[in-house]
């Protein structure tokens, strides 16, 4: 018993002291390193800015940078996201000359996933066309983190050639990537990749078409209306239908009205009816107001409320119909009153003073 006591007390006390010591040492080292790096960083960043503004030559820089080369590389890499134009070109050629870009391409195949993540980030920030192929191959990496970063960096790169790879990544069940990250990447690529996106409408799974519908809606071009109408009417995926309806609302072409109207029918799922209602409001054709107002008496309160809010966004015609509904004895009167009250509250207040 005595031995057990001595051993346990000693063990625990030593552990406590070691933990305390580790905490203090960690705090001390951190404080020192932070102070040191703050001093160096300011100096090195100034040097780099001078170099990028062609105030300092490469040979002068080479002499200076020998002192703290690793910090200098880190600062250069961090600077990639902050500079544009000529300065970025200078920085990229400097990193080329340092061999940093080739090293990063090699690192995309290394074992450690953090190394691969860093390499992908670096290549995305550098933004050179050669980065596209290694980044696309990283979309099938075994680690989700790496794949996600590759998606993000392909977006940063902004090359339309990446669109097919990104769309395939959305559908890849074995190597899933976050849908939202792919959307942002496709948004960044923008209209230059639109034709390749539309080509993807006829193949692959629902996630791919949902992503395309979303992006087409954001692009807001009326020429995409027929494709989106076709998705709304014919696609088997519910998510694609919802996103297409929303996209049609964003584009605002009156050509979409008949299709959207069709999906207000009571036989359709409520979520889709609500989105179509909002889309019609966004298009803003006053001819559709009666159709929307009729939804106020729908059995589903969520839809009725959405219809009232939609009508309130449709200008004088919408308001006129809402006023009529509000004074009626129908079930939708309360929703009409609510929408009108909300509208009144949003109107800018005129000072009485």
């Amino acid at each position, binding site marked *: *018993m005595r031995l057990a006591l001595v051993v346990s007390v000693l063990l625990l006390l030593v552990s406590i002291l070691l933990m305390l010591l580790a905490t203090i040492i960690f705090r001390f080292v951190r404080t020192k390193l932070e102070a040191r790096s703050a001093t160096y960083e300011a100096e090195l960043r100034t040097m780099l800015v001078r170099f990028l503004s062609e105030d300092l030559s490469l040979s002068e820089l080479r002499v200076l940078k020998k002192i703290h080369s690793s910090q200098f590389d880190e600062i250069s890499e961090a600077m990639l996201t902050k500079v544009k134009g000529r300065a970025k070109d200078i920085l990229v050629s400097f990193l080329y000359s340092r061999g940093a870009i080739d090293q990063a391409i090699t690192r995309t195949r290394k074992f450690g996933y953090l190394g691969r993540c860093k390499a992908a980030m670096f290549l995305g920030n550098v933004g050179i066309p050669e980065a596209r192929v290694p980044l696309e191959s990283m979309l099938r990496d075994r680690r989700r*983190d790496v794949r996600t970063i590759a998606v993000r960096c392909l977006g940063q790169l902004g090359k339309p050639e990446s669109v097919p790879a990104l769309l395939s990544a959305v559908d890849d069940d074995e190597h899933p990537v976050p849908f939202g990250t792919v*959307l942002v990447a496709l948004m960044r690529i923008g209209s230059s990749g639109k034709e390749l996106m539309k080509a993807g409408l006829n193949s692959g799974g629902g996630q791919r078409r949902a992503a395309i519908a979303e992006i087409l809606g954001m692009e807001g071009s009326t020429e995409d209306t027929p494709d989106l109408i076709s998705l709304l009417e014919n696609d088997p995926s519910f998510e694609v239908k919802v996103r297409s309806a929303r996209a049609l609302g964003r584009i605002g072409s009156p050509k979409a009205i008949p299709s959207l109207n069709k999906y207000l029918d009571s036989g359709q799922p409520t979520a889709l009816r609500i989105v179509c209602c909002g889309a019609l409001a966004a298009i803003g054709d006053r001819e559709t107001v009666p159709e929307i107002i009729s939804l106020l008496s729908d059995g589903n309160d969520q839809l009725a409320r959405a219809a009232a809010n939609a009508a309130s966004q449709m200008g004088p015609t919408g308001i006129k119909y809402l006023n009529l509904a509000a004074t009626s004895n129908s079930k939708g009167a309360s929703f009409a009153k609510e929408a009108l009250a909300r509208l009144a509250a949003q109107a800018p207040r005129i000072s009485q003073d």
Partner: protein
Amino acid sequence: MAPFIATLFRVLNWFGLSYFLALNTIYLILIILASFNLGSYFRRKTFSGFEDALSSPATLPVSVLMPAHNEEAGIVESARAVLSLDYPQLELIIVDDGSTDATYDKLREAFDLVEIPFEMPEMVPTLGQVISVNIARGLNDLTVIRKRSVGKKTDAVNVAINVAKYPLLCVVDADAVLDADALIKVTMPFVDDPQRVVATGGAIRPSNGCTAYRGRITEVRMPKKWLAKIQVIEYLRAFLLGRTGWSKLGALLIISGAFGVFRKDVVIAIGGYDLSSIGEDADLVARIHKYMRALKTPYRVTFVSEPVCWTEVPENLTILRRQRKRWSRGLVDTLWSNKSLFMNPKYGTLGLLAIPYFLFFEVLGPVVELTGFLLLLIALYFGFVNAYFAGLFLSVAILYGILLSILSLLIEEISYHRYDKWKFLCQAVVASIFENFGFRQMHAYWRLEGVFQALRGTNRSWEAMPRKGFATDQSGTNS
């Protein structure tokens, strides 16, 4: 007879010692698991893509639900802070649950509220009558609901759920102060894994002593009072690291009522908050687990350790005792309501590990802890155990406890490093030691009181804690 009593005492004392050993070792394992999780989180933080989430159309809009009962001291600041969070699309719904102070008046004055006619949907059950629904003039994303109180926070939250229009619900206490990026960070799992994530919780830290300006913590400091300093350590060990550990095991049972995000469709499907529940936060999570398991759909309930919700902790024993008794009652209530989870392999690590842990170590813990110390004293007095055994018992119960607190401090130092002054570190070390002499035993007693109250079925109303609130001035230096 005497040898029998001596043997009985020895057995009970050994049981007590083994109990403390098991309890502290479980915590050690949880802290180690949490440290792995934190390590991985920090390694990936550079690549986390919060900025992308802020601009992504796939980031789901959030309805922030804030039940408030006599919160005039800080309600306006809290509302402003929520409305200015870094998040693409959010609405704030404040439910003034029968406040007898100027909570509503302050809101009306600050946001120019106007009453609107509102047909209240009944997606989840509610009890208290809604008096009015108000929206802010010129501001589309603030709704203030006044209702009669039935003494239940859950009722106020359910009313807010019925009004919420967005697919994610974030429940926040009215006195809570969120970091500007807290909401986007706590919802990141929904962005990364939208098919599976159904609920996430963020970390809670004591705000006492911190400096705040316009609803944001501007300087993190240790509280002035020792009782609050001890709670800093306790929150760090139990709430931050403990919950991270359980989350790593896939067995997170508690998402704090002060800061959690839930998928609205799931919350509605389970009928919202249980109006008869006292431990509403744990009860909701337990029912989410049950519902998702019944659906046989892969799902995740996860804890994100970085987004911080700062909350005022009690600085006097009376209020702390009341709070801890309520927590204890709530836990008993939750475990009883969800007893089907206990040792049920269908619920995986939650049923086989977390629920038994909460029952044996959190609910029954105070009984064993207090009787353990009492029996040790009796046995020592009558010579049933020797001083060496007593020393061994105390080392396992107290020194091991100190070790866990210091280990938590070390992990905090390596990871978040929130208390950056040497003075605060020294205070934290002292608090880690003193916590085990008196506070822990007192806490066990309060928990025991809570367990008895739960067994008797008394006192089920929500008790708002008196708040000091954050005073602000133009220089932003007041706390």
